[in-house]
């Protein structure tokens, strides 16, 4: 067999070993059920929030409080002063949600059984009404008063390519979340697979048959495939749920990104990131003798750094720092997709980031192959970081 055929055979083996279609289907169904339940519960909660509180108002005329002021949240029911005692009892007993007694334009009392969620809304409405009342009492003409109290009208216009909107933000968040998910999934498989192979003593027989580089290349391809499959299933599951949500929300969800290769690039860069970090993780996992006692576990968190960097740059996607990290090979897999969706990307950024990232993958896999070759045959002792560095350089 050629080196490539051997690598492909290993990739196929790793993919079939770790991809469990049955578990994936169960996981997808579980996610769908959980998502639907969450969606349903959110709707129920939304409706429960829409419940209108009934508040009896005595003396509302002091501030000109109209009955429909807070119609969506509170039904204000003007009542005569003579019913105050009975209404107080009703409010204390919970027969009504509250009793508002307005003494004058500066004082009011709210009688409730417990502090209500709508109190601030009521206070703001009262303050607004009192302000209008005071302005009216100051002798201002109605026109002047209207001008003073009129809210400022802000019109939002957003031409295509002008900047990120809701759709871009949601999609960027989704890409970063899926990248994180793919990395975490692959990390788990690599860690379990390689340390398991060492503990099950499979390594000598395999390395006597194939070159360590072919083995690690096959692992990277196979496990990246498993991570991709898992991520795709998750994306499809949550994507379909999100589509239902968007369709039923009535709010527009349109992308205003002028990049013809957007979708392929949004898939390609995270995938290349998987390859880069899986090479790193394979090398580290090969140096771990016992995962329960190893001190190298913290190094497995390093691949999460690019996701964190992208998260920090979320609201600064058009900054010079973001531009740098967008082409820097260790962070390009997450920051460039962020910039593609959230900022203006210069024509040279994508090809430069691609070339640097591919070069970094090549260097990582070569170094990882050398570390892997020594680490996989080392039992009972974990190498120091200095030793690992020497293997990576010397082979």
């Amino acid at each position: 067999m050629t080196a490539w055929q051997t690598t492909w055979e290993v990739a196929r083996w790793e993919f079939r070993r770790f991809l469990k279609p049955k578990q994936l289907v169960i996981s997808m169904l579980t996610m769908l059920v959980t998502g639907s339940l969450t969606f349903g519960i959110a709707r129920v909660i939304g409706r429960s929030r829409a419940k209108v509180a009934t508040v009896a108002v005595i003396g509302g005329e002091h501030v000109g409080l109209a009955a429909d002021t807070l119609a969506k949240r509170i039904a204000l029911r003007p009542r005569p002063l003579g019913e105050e005692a009975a209404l107080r009892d009703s409010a204390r007993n919970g027969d009504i949600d509250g009793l508002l007694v307005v003494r004058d334009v500066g004082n009011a009392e709210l009688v409730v059984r417990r502090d209500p969620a709508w109190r601030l809304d009521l206070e703001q409405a009262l303050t607004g009404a009192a302000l209008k009342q005071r302005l009216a009492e100051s002798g201002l003409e109605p026109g002047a008063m209207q001008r003073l109290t009129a809210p400022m009208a802000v019109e939002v216009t957003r031409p295509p390519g002008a900047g990120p909107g809701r759709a871009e933000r949601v999609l960027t968040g989704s890409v970063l979340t899926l990248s994180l998910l793919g990395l975490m999934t692959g990390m788990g498989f690599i860690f379990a697979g390689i340390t398991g192979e060492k503990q099950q003593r499979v390594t000598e027989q395999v390395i006597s048959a194939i070159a360590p580089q072919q083995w690690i290349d096959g692992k990277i391809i196979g496990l990246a495939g498993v991570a991709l499959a898992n991520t795709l299933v998750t994306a499809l599951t949550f994507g379909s749920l999100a589509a239902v949500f968007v369709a039923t929300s009535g709010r527009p969800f349109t992308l205003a990104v002028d990049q013809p290769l957007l979708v392929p690039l949004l898939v390609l860069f995270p995938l290349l990131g998987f390859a880069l970090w899986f090479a790193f993780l394979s090398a580290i996992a090969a140096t771990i003798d016992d995962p329960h006692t190893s001190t190298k576990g913290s190094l497995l968190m390093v691949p999460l750094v690019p996701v964190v960097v992208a998260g920090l740059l979320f609201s600064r996607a058009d900054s010079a720092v973001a531009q740098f990290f967008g082409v820097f090979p260790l962070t390009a897999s997450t920051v460039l997709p962020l910039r593609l969706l959230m900022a203006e990307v210069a024509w040279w950024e994508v090809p430069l980031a691609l070339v640097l990232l591919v070069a970094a993958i090549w260097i990582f896999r070569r170094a990882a192959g050398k570390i892997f070759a020594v680490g996989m045959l080392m039992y009972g002792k974990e190498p120091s970081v200095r030793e690992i560095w020497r293997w990576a350089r010397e082979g």
Partner: protein
Amino acid sequence: MHNSSRRGAAVGDPLLVVNGVHKQYGSVRAVDDVSVEVHAGEIVALLGPNGAGKTTLIRMLVGLTRPDRGTVTYHIDGAERPGLPAHALGYLPEERGLYQDVSAARTLAYFGRLRGMSRPDAAHATAEWLDRFSLSDRANEPLKALSKGNQQKVQFASTVLHRPRFAILDEPFSGLDPLNQDLFVRTIRELRDGGTTVLLSAHQMQLVERLADRVILLSRGREVLRGTIPELRRTWSAGRKLVVRVSGDADPALLAGHPAVVQVDRTSADELTVLTHDDSPLSDLLVAIGSRYPVTSVLAEELTLHDIYVRSVEASLGNGAGVVAAGDGKGASR
């Protein structure tokens, strides 16, 4: 010796030539100036106590580690090369294991593919080996569901299902019951007869004695003995082995000082094993034994490989004796 070797390697020609290899780990000389030849079509046993350097030497032969000095050369298809291609080598390591969550059939097919077999050939060989080891009905069970002995069979099959030219088997019998040991002995012979040259490392001397065409013994990283088993017997026995049964207590001290006796051991309450000098008159010794013990039987036995092994290793540990090549006239001192 055996049938002609397949695929061009003539039986008796050197397949592997190891010349003066050294390997040192820190201050420990794991392998110290070892030279070995293995010829096509033979079974060579590489013996030695734990820590003698066998596994280190084997790892150098497989290419897992490099010698600090010396050379490892394979002669294959008329060319000399430092290692064998994957399809020509089978390696059963001492540190071994399998993917516990994968079935025997998939495991074997995978290892066949890694050794360069086509997919159909690997599938065919997998079925053949599972059948040979009576595992066909359990082919699709995960390996963790199989007994240790059955897992060992799968491991063995994964080493040789591609019919390598050279198989290195490090401790193939460990953990096997006697029936399966016999099965492996038969299988290794069949492999040899089919053209696979075998280098075998094992501690089960009675099995090695049944299998090996030649023996190489290492101790403390050095080669201390080599030759065929009959040659070793002739060279190393240096006398006879008598099994003396007595009625009553077999006290070895009564014979310890006799000039004809090399070594005397009590092998049971009423049995002694006596090793004698080759040139001492047997009649004198028998008289001496008869005068000291109430003898019920005396049996003369051939020295076993176990005896030769123990004496050779003890000798090497005692005085650092050099290599004893069977038939070269040198005896190991005691």
